[in-house]
């Protein structure tokens, strides 16, 4: 599928977000058991959160995930213990718009020089702790660890 910059990503597609080690949910022995809501918090000056569009890449989902991870390794500083969270566009919009109906939250195609599969989810509500937790728990619930991708 070919999209232009600022086009919306189809609802049944998936996006993948880089999750640093200190935003991964761990047990008391540092085993990774999930994602902290903080993984989806905006930094100062950000309007939306950045991710990678999986269906941009050819092949089945395993192949798409592998290619997306490789792209992230090329464009970001991906650390050894980090992970990647995967969510479906429809679920992201549903959760974000459930309590923030006044804001039109969209998942838009925003390719950049390094990552042609880059997307942004915006405008995100400003760091609502409960929303971020539910996004981590229900929506971006598929977690891939960097070390598991060759």
């Amino acid at each position: 599928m070919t999209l232009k910059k600022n086009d919306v990503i189809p609802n049944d597609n998936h996006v993948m977000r880089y999750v640093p080690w200190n935003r991964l949910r761990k047990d008391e022995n540092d085993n990774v058991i999930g994602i902290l809501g903080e993984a989806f918090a905006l930094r100062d000056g950000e309007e939306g959160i950045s991710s990678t569009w999986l269906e941009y890449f050819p092949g089945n989902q395993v192949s798409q995930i592998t290619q997306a991870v490789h792209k992230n390794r090329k464009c970001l500083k991906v650390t050894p213990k980090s992970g990647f969270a995967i969510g479906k566009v429809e679920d992201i919009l549903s959760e974000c718009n459930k309590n923030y109906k006044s804001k039109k939250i969209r998942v838009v195609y925003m390719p950049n020089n390094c990552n042609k599969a880059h997307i942004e989810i915006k405008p995100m509500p400003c760091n609502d702790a409960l929303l971020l937790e539910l996004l981590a728990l229900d929506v971006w619930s598929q977690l891939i660890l960097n070390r598991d991708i060759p």
Partner: protein
Amino acid sequence: MSTIAATQNISFPGFDNRSSTGSGSEEISNLFNKARKGLRLVRPAHQQYQPQVSETLEDRLDHTKALCKRKTAEVAMYLSEDFRKGFFLQIDNLIDAENWEEDDKPITEASFTTLLRMLILINPDLRPGLGSTSQGNIIAAWTKDKDQLTIECLPEDKVRWVLSRQFSGIRESAAGEILLTRLLAALTPYSPGNWFDNDPQEK
């Protein structure tokens, strides 16, 4: 002045601090108010660490790690040996230059102080998993099956908490930002022993 000694007549761990309503709650508040006067856990601004421009990220993280361990050692009498050992390992793993985000601020002394005071107040059997925010606030997270409790430690004894808890198969979620002294009262409706205790049924 090391002021932790000034509060040694205050016994947090032995105190029945799980009770968070009625007189128990008042006692906790009183204890904490006494402790706040006695403990000087955050140094005055002029004594605080000021990173040099030439310092690498690794240098700054090494300093932060040492600071966190020193602060923990200052309250060692309130934490069991096993707890401390595991906690130090977690600090080593969390504040690790190889896995640290370059844009993130190192964990602040003020946030880490709030974490220590929270652990003394709660006195959990189980250590939380640790994380951090881009602003340098430390996060404590307890997880039991589908039940999650996440607490961001803010400066000056403030905490931002969010939880998700199953009751009869129905999920309840809640969040708030409060003073540490009110934390147990806020969590009581959600049976926090489920997260903190080795065997919640026995208590």
